[in-house]
């Protein structure tokens, strides 16, 4: 029964990881920017919702809209104000990475100063667990997580295959030169990628807030997971990132079957490390070894 319980938890967490990782992977694939501040977007979205819904008592739909807008705007602004100038003087991979890292440090500490460094949680009737079978508990948020992931993935799939911008974004990740054929401005496309990628953190941020709770340091964890899922799934593959996220969520939770909770993050990285050493192309990716 413990195993089943962990499986349910793992699926819930994994669905949210999958969404967040797909956002990261979408940005990385189409812009080649290693956006580690993606974790900061996650934290910000979560705290905006918390502030409006749990503290100010606004209706949840208004808080959701604000969190969504906040995430998208933050992503686009970081791209415009920080990455664009660096790329203008042809900054290397590491230059962009360091700047992005700097942003996440700043956001983490700003949030910590404003809201305190402890956990806060968004309480709602949906986070109360229901006994599904004798000894097996799951809150409605688990179902919502899976549902949100499915809805977002279907939406994303349609966007990427049916719309002009979506197709251009996919083309960009496969071959940057193709974009000129489409007659689109790469800078503008980059903003779309950041907006879209950042929006995908919102379900994860809100539902994590409603279950495990939010803390300023959460951004780091999200960053690690997104990065790990992208690599495990294979760089450049959104499908891979989704599978990677799900796998990591499951691994982290199923590890509790035999290990103490403090090892769960280590388990994630053992998985990642093994992939990097033995299968650096991930599930679906291209080979990148030297």
């Amino acid at each position: 029964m413990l195993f089943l319980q962990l499986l349910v938890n793992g699926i819930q967490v994994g669905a949210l990881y999958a969404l967040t990782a797909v956002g990261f992977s979408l940005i990385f694939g189409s812009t080649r920017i290693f956006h580690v501040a993606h974790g900061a977007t996650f934290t910000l979205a979560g705290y905006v919702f918390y502030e409006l819904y749990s503290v100010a008592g606004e209706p949840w739909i208004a808080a959701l809209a604000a969190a969504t807008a906040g995430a998208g705007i933050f992503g686009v602004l970081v791209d415009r104000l920080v990455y664009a100038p660096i790329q203008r003087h042809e900054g290397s991979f590491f230059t962009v990475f360091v700047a992005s890292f700097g942003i996440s440090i700043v956001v983490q500490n700003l949030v910590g100063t404003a809201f305190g460094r402890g956990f806060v949680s968004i309480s709602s009737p949906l986070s109360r667990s229901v006994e599904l079978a004798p000894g097996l508990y799951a809150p409605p948020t688990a179902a919502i997580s899976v549902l949100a992931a499915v809805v977002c993935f279907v939406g994303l799939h349609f966007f990427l295959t049916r719309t002009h911008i979506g197709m251009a974004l996919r083309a960009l990740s496969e071959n940057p030169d193709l974009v000129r054929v489409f007659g689109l401005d790469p800078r503008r496309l980059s903003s779309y990628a950041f907006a879209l990628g950042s929006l995908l953190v919102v379900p994860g941020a809100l539902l994590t807030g409603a279950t495990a709770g939010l803390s300023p340091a959460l951004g780091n964890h999200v960053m690690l997971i997104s990065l790990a899922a992208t690599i495990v799934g294979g760089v450049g593959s959104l499908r891979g990132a989704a599978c990677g996220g799900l796998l990591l969520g499951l691994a982290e939770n199923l590890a509790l079957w035999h290990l103490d909770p403090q090892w769960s993050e280590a388990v994630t990285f053992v998985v990642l490390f093994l992939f990097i050493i033995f299968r650096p192309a991930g599930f679906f990716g291209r080979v990148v070894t030297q």
Partner: protein
Amino acid sequence: MIAYAMNLATLIAINAILAITLNFIMGYAGIFSLAHALFFGVGAYTAAWIAMHVSADFFLTVSGAALLASLLSLALALPALRVREVYFVAASLGLQVLGSTVFAEWKSVTGGIGGVIGIPPAELFGIPLSDPHAFLALALACLTFVIAVTYGLVRSSFGRSLTAIRDSESAAAAYGKNVALIKTLAVVVSSALCAVAGALYAFYLSFINVESFVLDTSILLMAMVIIGGTGTVLGPIIGTVLLLLLPAGLSYLSFLPHTEIGSIQQMIYGLAMVVLMIFRPGGLVGGRSLGERK
């Protein structure tokens, strides 16, 4: 006041060793590691263990610490040889997180969260170094040694090989450079020298726990190197001095709440990283942008 300045100077010397050894692989070999604090920790715990169970002789403990750190650094060299950029950053991050967990959980050696207490003072030729002046001198001597070794290597044929690999790995191999061996040696040297700082730290505080060897420390060290200037000799030292004086300087600003000083310090260096990458990617000392290779 004097005691305060001496304490700060000793910590600067220790951290400068860490920043210099990180810069050795980051700035010259293009190996961007987020696991440097791990080897700092390995050095500190090993030195503490040897000092408490075998002998507190400084040379013996330092050699032991350096030896173990360089052996374990092969775990870092392995991914560095296989993959680069995103992948390597991720692998080193994973190693760091894994290492912190081991430090926190392997209670029989590391004392867990509580740490190791009562590390005896270091002995030089049988004389215990309990005087802070003498210890500062020892730390500075170690710093000088580390600077001399890394500077010597960077200026030598080995340094040229490293830079050649960083600039074009395929060309370096096409001209007979054994890339795998050279990168491994760079990582091993860096980790061994990093462990010297670990040993100094353990002796200096006579108490160590996992909090000094976590991801945040690795990030701080990275910030020191980047803000000072990667691939330069002076950069990491200047970065260390600046980032260690920062909290001291902030605590003089009485309007800042004391509990927030750590936070404000991190915000400042986070912001400095962003601004420098936009306007001066080579850091304060360096001019060239880091890791040129696309």
